[in-house]
């Protein structure tokens, strides 16, 4: 793509124009000097001056002017052509002048680097030292430079950047940098980098978290083979525990995998329209058996037709986790409220329980992987400690917020807020 830009762009728009303007200015200056010199000889003055002015006016001025205008229009065509090519590229492209100031960019670039502005230095939009020094290198050495830059917050992103020096006007004389511009091509490699990271993290997390249940499985197997060899009753009891352990382990792997999958596409926002009320009633239906088992009544409020932009399956996971937690951990309250509010600036869903609540020091930590307030209690309830981590990543992807409020002894409320796109004021 860069090569194409180079070929299709025979002349630098602004610079050539400036050069012709300079020629024009030079001609005018010479003319004035001539006239001034002539003033010295009064006899020749009127005749010669008149002639010169006429000749030069007839020859150079209109010509120069004509040439300048021709150049401007041809330059504008070329510039429009380059702009068209730049906007046609699927990846972010930014064109810089020989000072590193931005002269052109496409919509993809603006989306990835919101601080981009024509005439402003690239560093205002990309602060990454790798990119800054790549641009410096191109300007200094006139050769291609490559760099990679990573952003960790608010969502992780990685770009491979290729900065190519382009001489739009090969024929122009003067110092080599005079007509140098830089074409910066950004390639989003977030998915590839995440995949690499995901493998590493998955192995680390899985091996650490599976170690304990695996060790206990071994223990039971040894008991069944040894001391409990001839005790069918004990064997049955141990096998039941082992089944439960194995179930938990496979759930852990499933959860880790879904977490990795969500993380992989966290930088891509979903586009589907989803009926939130139907998501909620579906979730509540699937949780009915659990709520019966825990003697907890799920009360609903505001279940009117409400749409948000999102991924249906992922939103089901979010509310499944929140309502399941409320039922599991808040069962002593005997009641869980699920409230849907279609507000002016946001759509919000609140899941509130009347259980033991959560102490303030745990609140900021709940969404960390494997974080459990009471490890034994959560284990016993079949929890892996990944539920809220999953919720957080899904909501990140939806640009939605999770607000947790709780006081010890007064239950807990988990509120999910989907911001509404700003409505244009009426004209």
């Amino acid at each position: 793509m860069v090569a194409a830009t180079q070929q299709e762009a025979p002349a630098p728009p602004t610079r050539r124009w400036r050069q012709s303007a300079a020629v024009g200015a030079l001609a005018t200056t010479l003319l004035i000097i001539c006239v001034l010199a002539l003033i010295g000889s009064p006899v020749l003055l009127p005749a010669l001056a008149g002639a010169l002015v006429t000749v030069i006016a007839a020859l150079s001025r209109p010509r120069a002017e004509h040439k300048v205008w021709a150049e401007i229009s041809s330059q504008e065509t070329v510039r429009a052509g380059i702009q068209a090519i730049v906007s046609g590229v699927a990846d972010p492209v930014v064109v810089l002048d020989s000072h590193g100031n931005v002269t052109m960019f496409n919509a993809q670039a603006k989306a990835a680097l919101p601080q981009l502005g024509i005439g402003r230095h690239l560093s205002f939009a990309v602060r990454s030292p790798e990119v800054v020094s790549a641009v410096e290198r191109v300007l200094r050495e006139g050769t291609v430079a490559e760099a990679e830059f990573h952003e960790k917050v608010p969502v992780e992103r990685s770009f491979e950047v290729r900065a190519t020096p382009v001489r739009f006007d090969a024929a122009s004389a003067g110092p080599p940098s005079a007509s140098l511009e830089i074409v910066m091509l950004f390639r989003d490699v977030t998915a590839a980098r995440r995949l690499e990271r995901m493998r590493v993290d998955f192995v680390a997390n899985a091996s650490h978290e599976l170690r304990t249940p695996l060790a206990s499985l071994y223990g039971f197997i040894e008991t069944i083979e040894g001391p409990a060899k001839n005790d069918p009753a004990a064997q049955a009891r141990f096998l039941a525990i082992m089944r439960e352990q194995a179930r938990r382990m496979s759930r852990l792997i499933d959860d880790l995998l879904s977490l990795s999958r969500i993380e992989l596409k966290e930088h891509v926002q979903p586009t589907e329209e989803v009926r939130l009320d139907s998501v909620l009633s579906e979730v509540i239906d699937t949780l009915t058996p659990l709520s019966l088992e825990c003697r907890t009544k799920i009360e609903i409020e505001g279940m009117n037709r409400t749409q948000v932009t999102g991924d249906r399956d992922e939103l089901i996971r979010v509310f499944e986790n929140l309502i399941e937690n409320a039922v599991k951990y808040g069962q002593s309250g005997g009641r869980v409220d699920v409230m849907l509010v279609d507000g002016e600036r946001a759509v919000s869903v609140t899941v509130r329980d009347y259980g033991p609540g959560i102490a303030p020091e745990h609140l900021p930590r709940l969404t960390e992987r494997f974080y459990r307030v009471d490890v034994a209690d959560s284990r016993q309830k079949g929890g892996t400690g990944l539920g809220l981590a999953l919720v957080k990543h899904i909501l990140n992807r939806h640009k939605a917020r999770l607000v947790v409020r709780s006081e010890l002894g007064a239950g807990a409320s988990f509120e999910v807020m989907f911001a509404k796109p700003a409505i244009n004021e009426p004209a």
Partner: protein
Amino acid sequence: MAEHIVRAFDADLDALSRGVAELGGLAESMTTRAIEALVRQSPAMANEVIALDAKLDALQQELEEKAVLTIARRQPMAVDLRAVIAAIRVTHDLERIGDLAKNICKRVLAITGLVQAPKLVKGVEHLSQLVLTQLKDVLDAYVERNAEKALAVWEHDENIDALYTSLFRELLTYMMEDPRNIGVCAHLLFCAKNIERMGDHATNVAENVYYLVTGGKLLAERVKADTTSLEKPMSAQ
């Protein structure tokens, strides 16, 4: 002629702002990599960050000299003067952030291979994520000259304090659970403290961006949510 001077002055200011943005980029990058070195227990990465600190210091000094020269040569007034003053102050905070990143890396070198459970560094990583977001937002606010964004950063600092307090208690619990954890946890506590202080510097930057744009000051001292030192002694489970 006057216009020429004005334009040269604008160019000076622009170069100064650009330098601050680049310095900020370096501080962001050092912080991100310091945390990565901690999470991945990578001494190589830690050493890279330690080496970068000299570059940050040199850049900061260069910018400060440039700013002082600008004041001397152009004698700026009003918003222009504020721009130069804010640039000087912001570079100081960014330089401190770099120092703190370097300090974290020195601790990484000390504890590499001794961290038994990944959960020990998870909380520190979480804290760093909040602080990095603050740093990114405040640098964006600086580049955009956006007072509202700066104010938002300034107000968000409380989240960091709450998380720090929680982390402090968690690390103390680990120390009490198993004395072999004490060495590592002490280093991690200092890492967390360093990160929390980076958050304070980001807040300072927010104050300066606000001052630069509006000429006003954000309320001098805020009530901190940090109650760590007031806590009753905890019992060991």
